[in-house]
């Protein structure tokens, strides 16, 4: 192991290129298998319970609700893939729950490890983080399903209800502190703009996952302005 830790630049480059190829290879195969499994499962279940899916209802349902999710899938892919990297990206799209868990989880791990996006270190940390997070969800759900009968009354009790209704605000509150304190000036404008938007168009509060886009775009534009001012010599 010790000769590995001191590998020279060339060997490191080569190793990482090989690692990267492997990641894409395993990522693609497992994604393809999962697509087949997820789409095949309803048919296998159909064989067991004796009724196949009604394909015309599928088509109609898809047109009514599916299109919105198709658009948001494309957007999620374009926005989150660069944040997650290769390994993290494949895993996160297989295991889901991106906005409310995987993305903040990977950002937090990255913050703790202090890695920069686009580096190999970041790719590794991000993959570790998404894999660990996915496994925890799988374990918690498996235990939960196993203990469903004794757990159900506790988890659904009136006392605990408000706590679980507020998992997301609790998550983003903590993350907001972490990110706002280092970028207070940058955060102020999107926060004020988004707040005003929701105040004047209250119906948008149910569309928060879509409102991330304009909010993110404004913040990136502001960050770009601030950053190009900082180094006026380099600005094209």
């Amino acid at each position, binding site marked *: 192991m010790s000769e590995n830790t001191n590998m020279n630049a060339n060997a490191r480059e080569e190793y990482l290129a090989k690692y990267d190829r492997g990641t894409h290879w395993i990522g693609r195969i497992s994604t393809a298998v999962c697509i087949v499994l997820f789409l095949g499962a309803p048919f296998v279940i159909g064989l067991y319970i004796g009724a196949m899916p009604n394909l015309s209802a599928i088509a109609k349902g898809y047109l009514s*609700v599916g299109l919105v999710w198709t658009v948001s899938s494309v957007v999620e892919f374009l926005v989150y893939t660069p944040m997650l990297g290769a390994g993290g990206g494949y895993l996160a799209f297989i295991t889901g729950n991106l906005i409310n868990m995987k993305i903040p989880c990977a950002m937090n791990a990255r913050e703790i490890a202090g890695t920069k996006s686009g580096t190999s270190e970041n790719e590794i940390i991000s993959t570790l*983080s998404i894999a660990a997070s996915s496994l925890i969800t799988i374990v918690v759900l498996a235990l939960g399903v196993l203990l469903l009968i004794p757990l159900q009354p506790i*988890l659904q009790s009136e006392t605990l209800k408000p706590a679980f209704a507020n998992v997301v605000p*609790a998550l983003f509150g903590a993350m907001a502190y972490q990110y706002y304190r280092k970028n207070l000036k940058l955060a102020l404008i999107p926060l004020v703009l988004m707040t005003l938007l929701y105040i004047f168009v209250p119906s948008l509060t149910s569309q*928060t996952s879509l409102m991330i886009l304009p909010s993110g775009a404004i913040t990136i534009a502001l960050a770009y302005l601030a950053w190009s001012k900082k180094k006026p010599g380099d600005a094209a």
Partner: protein
Amino acid sequence: MLEVLNSAPMYLICGLIILFVALVCVVFMVRAYKAGIAIGMDKKKLNYAVTSSITFSILPSIGILLGVIALSGSLGTPWPWLRLSVIGALHYETQVAEAAAEQVGIGQLSASVMTPQAFTTIALLMSLCIIWGMVLSLFFNKSYLKKLQGKKKDSGETAKKEGFGDAAMTAMFIGLVSAYMGSYIGGFVSGKGMFTFQGDYVPIIVAVVSALVMAVFTYFAEKKHMVWLESFSIAGSMLIGMLAAIVL
């Protein structure tokens, strides 16, 4: 109907798929860990990344478990268990399942009117609508990331573009967080009519409590050099934030 949906073969079908996904995660994790060691990353850093992600994910996962419980009343336990263990997201599954129930003509998502065909149709629609992230990932993850990296190299000489890639990710995340924070404030101010200040204030308080606790954690981690705290700070902040919702 619910008996069939909760029968052993259903658990077997769904459980095997979940097991496969778990194995994929383990493979990725072991590879990444080994690669990290091989290129000389600090073992501690790698361990922190894992432990922080574990503590981070417990509470949201319990939230997701509630989704399984919520859907199990109409779809049985195994299918929601599969959907939410893998690709799904809570807000998505419920919405699509309800829309699908309408399309198959049972009107509502309820065990009393569920038929075998309604179930398989709902199940397939739930899988289908959210499959596109995976499809795109399968075909374009590699070329997309390469393209981004290529861009970076073209202008890489000036180390400047590289600087912005990182700043852009941070900015995107700040935008994301701001969209949520804004929705809590907006929801309170205008949730029950514009400027009535009658809306739900609990999310704001939860977010603020959670942020304050996070500040305390950060103080101890940075000023008192209790670095190990970082792995638990988000989970701890969330827990106390959520407790505030109970007290309110």
